[in-house]
């Protein structure tokens, strides 16, 4: 592996790790359930995307990383569904949204 690819792989890993960390911080810091929903569902998209990309580049000598791309595609397909189910469940249970939220969730 040439030094340039090593730099690219490390940079991608750091970016991915940083975004995942920010997502976790968001989960801890944001005030209510609906805003917390944004942290983890979003960190995965760029965080995991960057980590997968670095894996594709790292293992590129063993052929093209189809399985990494499949993992990313599966994640992109399932993340919105789980976020949607969480939001629906929260509205069903009547979870309070934070003060200052404009608009209202629907009655279920």
């Amino acid at each position, binding site marked *: 592996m040439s030094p340039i690819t090593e730099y690219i792989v490390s940079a991608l890993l750091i970016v991915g790790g940083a*975004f995942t960390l*920010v*997502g976790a*911080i*968001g989960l801890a*810091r*944001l*005030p*209510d359930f*609906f*805003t917390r*929903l*944004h*942290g983890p*569902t*979003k960190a995965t*998209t*760029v965080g995991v*995307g960057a980590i997968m990309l670095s894996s594709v580049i790292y293992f590129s000598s063993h052929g093209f990383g*189809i*399985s990494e791309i*499949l993992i990313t595609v599966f994640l*992109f*397909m399932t*993340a*919105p*569904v789980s*976020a*949607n189910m969480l*939001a*629906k469940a929260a*509205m069903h249970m009547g979870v309070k*949204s*934070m003060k*200052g*939220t*404009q*608009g*209202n*969730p*629907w009655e279920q």
Partner: protein
Amino acid sequence: MFDRLNFPQPWLSLVLFSTWQFLSDGISGASVVMGLVLAWVIPQITHGFWPERPAFVKVWRMPMFVLVVLWDILVASFEVAILILNPRQPKPVFVNYPLQLEHPLAISLLASTISLTPGTVSADVSDDNKTLLIHALDAESEQEVIDAIHKRYEKPLMEMFR
């Protein structure tokens, strides 16, 4: 018995079959058999959940749409990261988004896109498929979110599913 041995959704079956070949360690007899079984069983089980197929989909517009969405994910991720690390409180908004799309598949595509792009989560679709409830993490007003989503995502989808 034998009349059920068909593939009601050939494209889905094809995708399932090839995905299984990629997932298994190289193509072998076992992976082909297993792929065929999956390509037959999964469409049968999920049959009732699939909406009717749209009359005509302009598939060639899809790559451009995916690129736009990926770019937006990247840009908006930075915005959300900055917002999370910023000490000020976010200003969340529940948005009632008036849907102009009609096909269920198009609506679910739009809802998934909205959930994937950071800063917005689609929370619910009304029973008559006319309104989408979106939670925006940080926005000035409802109209701002509606306009942005309409311009960037719904218009291209409407073109595709015309």
